[in-house]
């Protein structure tokens, strides 16, 4: 069951509104697909994210995937713990393994994302086609 307190993108990122900001991370499905995560390359506070554009790279032993911004905004904070413990993203993708916090540029961008139900349905179709 995907958490209902956030929205999801097709690229398996989530954005959760929190105290005027939005926290961004990847989903459980994404971390499972990637395998043991070894490194996360993230922007700096002050950088700008643009919705659906690449903002970083998440690297596992066997893959290096782009991270796609679920919404636009200015980066306010980056999860420093991931430098020493990138495996946090595998262990706790929805809480402790958060990637960054942004100041959202446009609230309406959330409408372009999926609800937890819609995302679950999306995952089902992926499973069926594989």
């Amino acid at each position, binding site marked *: 069951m995907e958490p209902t307190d956030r929205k999801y993108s097709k690229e398996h990122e989530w954005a959760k509104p929190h105290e005027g900001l939005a926290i961004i991370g990847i989903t459980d499905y994404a971390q499972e697909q990637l395998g043991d995560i070894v*490194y996360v*390359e993230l922007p700096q506070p002050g950088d700008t994210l643009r919705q659906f554009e690449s903002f970083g790279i998440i*690297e*596992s032993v*066997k*893959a*290096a995937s782009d991270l796609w911004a679920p919404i636009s905004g200015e980066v306010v904070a980056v999860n420093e713990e991931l430098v020493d413990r990138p495996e946090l993203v595998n262990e706790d993708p929805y809480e402790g393994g958060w990637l960054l916090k942004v100041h959202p540029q446009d609230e309406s961008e959330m409408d372009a994302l999926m609800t937890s139900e819609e995302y679950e349905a999306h995952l089902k179709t992926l499973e069926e086609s594989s």
Partner: protein
Amino acid sequence: MSSYIPNTDADRRKMLEALGLDSLQELFEVIPPEKRYPHLDLPPPLSEMEVKKLLRGLAEKNADLDHHPCFLGAGAYHHFVPAVVDHIISRGEFYTAYTPYQPEVSQGTLTTIYEFQTMVCQLAGMDVANASMYDGATGVAEAGLMAARVTRRDGLVVASTLHPRYREVLRTYTQGMGMDIQEVGYGEDGGVDLRQADQLLGTGTAALMVQYPNFLGGLEDLQPLSELAHGVGALLVVCVDPIALGLFRAPGEQGADIVVGEGQSLGSPPSYGGPYVGLFACRQKYLRQIPGRLVGMTTDADGRRGFVLTLQPREQHIRREKATSNICTNEALVALAAATYLAIMGKHGLRQVAELCYHKAHHAASEIDALPGYERLFGQFFKEFVIRTPVSPATVNAFLMERGIIGGYGLERDYPQLGDCLLLCVTEMNTKEEIDSLLEALREIGDAR
């Protein structure tokens, strides 16, 4: 039948039967009939004896360094190769092995690469080295591309005293990447013109690229160059002669960010230009942008120490069009030769090789400078130096060859302003007798003029 194909007609018949086929031709019916079985106009096959005779005949048409004193350098060098090196790289377990993608059966290769990486770092004074590039020239090119990735800038300022051929390869490699390459000239002492470098460096510069010792043989202090580069947020890329690092301060101690170089001098013969090995090292913070393979230490399921290829997602087979480079096959066996060379020479041996080169080269240079009609140019050098000759360099070399001596490198094509100059190289392989015969021949040319 080729002796490399074990199967006989009987074996093939059995196999065709298992496939339900009557002939080998049936395997190729998928190929358009009009394109099938072209006639190839190639010489008829020869036995092993005949091939050996043929190749020996071709080899004997070449004047080799076992029989001729050689004073050529300019990017390829005649250094001593201890017997151990060829002995080790001739072991079938090393030279017929594949790339170590299956670490459980490749600990030999992986361990030696880890040792190679370590010693390259020790020589260069850097934090990380890769498992090798193709050669010094492509190492320089990849360093330029890496600097551009790291700084997100597209300008390169390159010393004109960086090997001319390396500069050309840099241009070839970057022609599709929209980079802006500018050259900075040299001053009276042969070192980089600092004033000009200062003018050319700017906020669009990804790297300042220099050679140490430079192509004209000269040594210079890298610190001012590093300050100029870092002052505009650019990287300092230094291309080295690893033998020189047996004696002289490492670029890593002088502010270099990326160190590249030609490793041929470390245990490989000149071999008419290849195979050689590119050294590539950088600072820890650029680790994820380094091209090529990396070997890392880890443990196995039972807690034993072992080695694996690591950080592979940066490479072409995973990252594909976003890879740090397209490099796949590198120069692993030549890197093994370098590792064996450094192991057998060690701390004392490498320093001794460098000192022999230094003293012999300086003795030859000062003797030649004293000959009427000859003049040595530029300042402090290591094992190569520039001599202005009384007649054209080509004439000098032709005369030397008549005496059985392989002369120097004529600079006219690369540096028109030095069109009457030769670049001479003296290494530990040149005995006093060889140097004396060179001096005698040069004196004769000078006198005859």
